[in-house]
């Protein structure tokens, strides 16, 4: 009796053939000479220019919408949709002169009225916009309203002088009034009508956004006819697509895959020192007054001593896959105080300073105990860095427990400042002005003053800046403030997060430090 069901075997083989062999018509997804493919890890959430909430959104909006001026990678601020600007004598009125002949992508003429509308729409409480423009730029400049002076001149009214006003106002995406006032918020979130070098073609959620070059846009030189912004959340998949030649630029290359990219012969990694300030905050808020270590950490001497306990360059080399220079404050290069030197790693000195501050080691080698909260999955290798810092502190007798939470949970705590007694965090910064970085601590109750730092001298000096017009004098105040920050540190100073971009070898493009992917100027080699 035969037990060999040969037909079943054939059926099985046929199935395998169907599954594995037939589709070997495979991958025809390679980029052509007119198409640039960029892969981001996160999709956009919506397409309203007044509601930009994430870097992945701003990267795409940057190409669809123009701004009055443009902030360059080197910190320069250059004319864009506006050709010139002037500030009133009291510093509270910023008047911009638009270029002639501007249009939005639906053909509507872009005039001063449209520029004014872009600000008014973002500021309108009825629209309840969150994100960079409504949530940061407008409050930071003390926005009061707009005035249309004539067809090409628009004035932005503020309640105080801000020497960084030009840069801040340059972050607002300009759009046309007629098209946007005709749409509901829901419609505007799906139908972008831009004013920049590329126009919107389609958005397939969680898959890609396609943009097409605007012929005749003369304010910026563009090369590629089409930009495709793909969404590839998994880092290994992004790297594989880059090496396969299907993608031209990817962000967030994991340090352990840098070698694989560089060895591929198809692409290479650009490592740039980013502008995101990574630090450990000391919590001064009273919510934590009963937490272990809180009292000790209120003392300046203790906080200074702890700076010597952390070997930042080793953390960078071992956990971030790159060399880095330790930060001396909250301001990015080259705008920091040149007289300040990074705290060196000197655990012996840390111990001596802690002894002097009244926290000698007990019989078990413990000075005091505390907790370091930190996120997982937000910053480069964040959870491991948090654990390393906890170990360094424990090594000098400050026994530190690392309390690591998933980012989704952790960020719910940072907003209401419910993190402490120590917490790990990153804060985006810029290269164009020290005050932009320092604006995190613009007031004791500022939303971004996560530590609730109350140093009176700092905030007095900050407020004095509103009366200063002279750049040299302003620089002196800035340097003084950075000294105050250095000597009474609310942060355990760490590093500026390095960013790793994977770039196809066919492309001539340089990544920026501020995490913004500006790629309209990319060219084929």
């Amino acid at each position: 009796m035969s037990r060999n069901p040969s037909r079943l075997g054939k059926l099985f083989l046929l199935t395998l053939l169907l599954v594995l062999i037939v589709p070997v018509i495979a991958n025809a997804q390679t980029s052509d000479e007119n198409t640039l493919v960029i892969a981001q890890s996160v999709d956009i959430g919506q397409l309203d220019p007044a509601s930009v909430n994430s870097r992945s959104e701003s990267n795409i909006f940057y190409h669809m919408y123009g701004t009055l001026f443009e902030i360059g990678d080197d910190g320069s601020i250059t004319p864009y949709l506006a050709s010139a600007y002037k500030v009133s004598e009291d510093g509270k009125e910023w008047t911009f002169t638009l270029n002639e002949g501007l249009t939005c992508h639906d053909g509507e003429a872009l005039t001063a009225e449209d520029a004014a509308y872009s600000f008014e729409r973002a500021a309108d409480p009825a629209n309840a916009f969150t994100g960079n423009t409504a949530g940061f730029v407008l409050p930071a400049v003390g926005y009061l309203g707009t005035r249309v002076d004539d067809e090409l001149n628009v004035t932005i009214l503020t309640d105080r002088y801000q020497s960084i006003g030009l840069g801040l106002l340059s972050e607002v995406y300009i759009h046309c009034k007629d098209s946007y006032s005709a749409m509901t918020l829901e419609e505007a979130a799906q139908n972008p009508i831009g004013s920049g070098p590329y126009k919107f073609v389609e958005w397939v959620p969680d898959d890609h956004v396609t943009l097409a070059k605007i012929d005749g846009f003369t304010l910026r030189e563009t090369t590629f006819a089409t930009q495709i912004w793909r969404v590839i959340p998994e880092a290994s998949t992004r790297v594989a697509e880059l090496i396969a030649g299907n993608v031209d630029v990817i962000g967030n290359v994991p340090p352990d895959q840098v070698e694989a990219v560089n060895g591929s012969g198809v692409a290479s990694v650009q490592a740039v020192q980013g502008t995101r300030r990574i630090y450990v905050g000391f919590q001064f808020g009273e919510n934590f007054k009963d937490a272990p270590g809180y009292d000790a950490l209120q003392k300046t001497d203790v906080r200074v001593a702890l700076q010597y306990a952390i070997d930042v360059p080793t953390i960078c080399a071992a956990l971030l896959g790159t060399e880095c220079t330790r930060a001396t404050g909250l301001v990015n290069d080259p705008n920091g105080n040149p007289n300040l030197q990074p705290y060196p790693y000197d655990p012996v000195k840390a111990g001596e300073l802690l002894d002097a501050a009244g926290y000698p080691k007990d019989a078990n080698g413990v000075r005091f105990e505390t907790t370091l909260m930190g996120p997982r999955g937000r910053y480069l290798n964040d959870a491991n860095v948090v654990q390393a810092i906890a170990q360094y502190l424990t090594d000098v007798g400050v026994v530190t427990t690392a309390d690591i939470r998933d980012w989704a949970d952790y960020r719910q705590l940072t907003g209401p400042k419910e993190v402490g007694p120590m917490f790990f965090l990153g804060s985006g910064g810029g290269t164009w002005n020290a005050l932009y970085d320092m604006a995190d601590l613009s007031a004791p109750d500022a939303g971004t003053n996560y530590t609730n730092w109350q140093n009176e001298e700092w905030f007095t000096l900050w407020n004095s800046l509103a009366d200063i017009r002279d750049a040299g004098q302003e620089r002196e105040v800035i340097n003084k403030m950075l000294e105050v920050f250095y000597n009474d540190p609310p942060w355990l100073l760490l590093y500026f997060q390095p960013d790793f971009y994977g770039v196809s070898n066919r492309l001539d493009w340089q990544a920026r430090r501020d995490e913004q992917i500006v790629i309209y100027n990319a060219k084929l080699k």
Partner: protein
Amino acid sequence: MGPYIVQRLLQSVFVIIGVTLLSFLTIHLDGDPTYLYVSERASQEEIEATRAKLGFDKPLTEQYFSFISGLMRGDLGMSIRSRQPAVDLVMQRLPATLELTLFAMLISTLVAIPIGIISAVRRGTPTDGGIMLVAMFGQSIPGFWLGIMLILSVGLQLKWLPISGHVPVIDLMLQGDWGQALSNIPKAITFLIMPAITIGLFSLSRNARLVRSSMLEVLSQDYVVTARSKGLSERVVIIKHAFRNALIPVVTMLGLEFGFLLSGVVVTETVFSWPGVGRLVTNAITQRDIPVVQASVVVFAVLFIGLNLIVDIIYAQLDPRIRLR
């Protein structure tokens, strides 16, 4: 049959009510959900106005009935992030997820049945041992690891299949663009294979073992011995007499299978950049976009319960003993 269907329908309704209750309560787990809808800098007046506008100032029972009433109209609120109706966001992505889960079911069933039968027929041979070893291996591999390995080997090194992405078919069919949908099928399959294997391998392995054990049981039955003694060919004995009866437990598993595969898409869609509901849920959880999470849970639950109801009814039709119990 009628009373059985009514009974199962009633059970399903209760399960759906339970799911909606749990789903409704998720938005209240973190305290006052109003704070999810306002910016960090919102004033007290703005917070109170938003609370009143969204009905969060009303008693929980009233809010729940309002939630159910919305659900009946297909309205589960607006996404906090994208300002789009949450149900619309789920329905936009559902076709891609269905393509993936259905294709995974197809692969796992088409492959599992023949290898399960071969393994049973060749019981105790190296072939049987090899198949069962591979099946055990298939049940042990974590999906995300398998996905990445497939990408690196089949996608990147061999270049047989695209690494990630999606070509729509069902979505185009729903839009009435049948021509484009049909022409997309060959390319869509190339994109489907790796993610479908990733989520389907566990089911494939389990089903292969199930078919094998079921076949072994049936092959030892008297009527199979009788069939053989009548001189019927082995092919006829296996296919016509044994296999049909061995298939019953496999059919039962298919309903549950769908739910299992749906739960697997959360990771697989992320690894393969598949624009389905799994990724939508992952992102919504990360961004605390609770209305989207609620809508996804309700849609998944209704799908799962509906499919199981159909399977139960078919099963009862095939095997009358079920509805008599």
